[in-house]
């Protein structure tokens, strides 16, 4: 039994179907990349696991089904989410944004704050700043930090590098590596920037029009000329 099992997951917005029987597995401590073009269903997949869409199929974390649970219960079960558009609280300070993340994990506030500040020292320096006045990179750090304040075992990160300078992308990548290495988190990353995803991940899933069309390690997928040309630039 894998640590995370997504089994035949379909998702719907009203009558429109956005995912078609997606299956995916991750072992504890894995970094899994989900790559695909804009609109392929990467964000929908993550939203669906978080209970934010109407779904069919199953999602199991350590054998326990998450389907039918409300999002707040899924967060309490140890699933953190840093969404593509951040969804931060613009007129709150960095510190208060992080403390909102601690809503379900109040006993861990001090340890989690120390972890977030160790990963992103800039958030400590700017803890009194409103997030509405921050750069995209800083907001991404706050978004990741807020997700970490929920004490997750499993972390979903949607498009962490979109619109960011290469230097900031490197900081984010380093933080994700440390989260796996030092804190043992299992991480799923949705990315259009396939090379960023490849540099981090153990396994890659290619999503096209709501379906998994390929999966494997970097080496396995690189052997497919079409995929390599489409996503890896070689």
């Amino acid at each position, binding site marked *: 039994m894998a640590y995370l099992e997504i089994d035949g997951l379909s998702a719907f917005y009203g009558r429109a179907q956005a995912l078609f029987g997606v299956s995916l597995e991750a072992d504890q401590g894995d970094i899994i990349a989900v790559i695909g073009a804009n609109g392929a269903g990467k964000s929908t997949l993550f939203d669906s696991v*978080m209970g*934010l869409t109407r779904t069919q199929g199953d999602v199991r974390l350590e054998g326990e089904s998450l389907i039918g649970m409300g*999002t707040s219960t899924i967060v309490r079960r140890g699933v953190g989410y840093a969404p593509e558009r951040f*969804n*931060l*609280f613009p007129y709150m300070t960095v510190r208060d944004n992080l403390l*909102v993340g601690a809503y379900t*994990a109040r006993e861990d506030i001090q340890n989690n704050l120390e972890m977030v500040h160790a990963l992103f020292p800039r958030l400590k320096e700017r803890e009194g700043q409103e997030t509405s006045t921050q750069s995209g990179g800083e907001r991404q750090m706050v978004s990741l930090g807020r997700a970490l304040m*929920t004490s997750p075992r499993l972390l979903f990160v949607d498009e962490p590098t979109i619109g960011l300078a290469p230097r900031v992308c490197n900081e984010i990548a380093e933080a994700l590596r440390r989260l796996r290495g030092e804190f043992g988190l299992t991480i799923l990353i949705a990315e259009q920037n396939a090379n960023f995803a490849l540099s981090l991940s153990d396994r890659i899933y290619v999503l096209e029009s709501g379906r998994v069309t390929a999966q494997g390690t970097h080496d396995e997928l690189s052997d497919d000329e079409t995929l390599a040309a489409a996503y890896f630039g070689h």
Partner: protein
Amino acid sequence: MLQILIQGFLLSGLYALIAMGFTLIFSVGRVLDLAYGAYLLIGGYTYFHFSQTLGFPAAAGLALAAVVGCAMGLAKFRLIVKPLGGGHVAVEISTLILAVVLQAGVVLVFGDSSKILLPIVPGVERLEGATVPYSNLLAAVASWIILLGLYCFVRFTHTGRAMQAVSMDARGAVISGIDSDRINAITWMISGALGALGGVFFASYTQLYPGMWVAPLIISVAVVIVGGIGSIIGTLVVAHIVGFMEITVSALIAPELRGVVTMLLIIGVLVLRPRGLFGREEI
């Protein structure tokens, strides 16, 4: 002049308390609760019944009014707002109908004649020609204390931060583990308690009558439209603008025009600055 200043401050504090419950719902729930004035109606009559008819101490009457307001807020959320989902127009029409129904209920129980609420604290203070009833002073001081408590609650507690979070980005709040239904229910309860307490103080300024829910609703709508926000500080500022305008017009022009200026202010802001004076969505 001193009279205008004193009366302005006293009335504005009360207006801030009255408007706060309404703006909280607008900010967190994103709907206009057009039955908000009914909290004041029921709160006022609850106090009247327990303290004046049954002889309970004033503090007990106030506490019971707050509890009834709380229960009304929770019932309104569970029975009307939540089942209607995100339908703003449906919520607004339903709450307006609810206010009319509650008014009819009050007529049925208490009759349709006005009732004088005895001063919560009897006596007056005379200050260089200005007369300040202790009841009005209590209303203002209690309003300030309640608003300060609310400010601390919203700023420094997990539940308060969750209310801010839902008001700023509901999706962000949900993925942070916040149960937005629970936060909405708490907000509706706080709104009900604030409205009911405001009703007791408002009735001590004026009198109790079944149609008394309309004027506070207009004041609350004015504060939301003029402020364009649901923030505590913003509500205080706008409540003072409305309060001082009313007192000044009442003293210098004609008392009959008191409510008219508030309505003119609403229209003026809607035409000239539809997003309100502040335009930030926060608590």
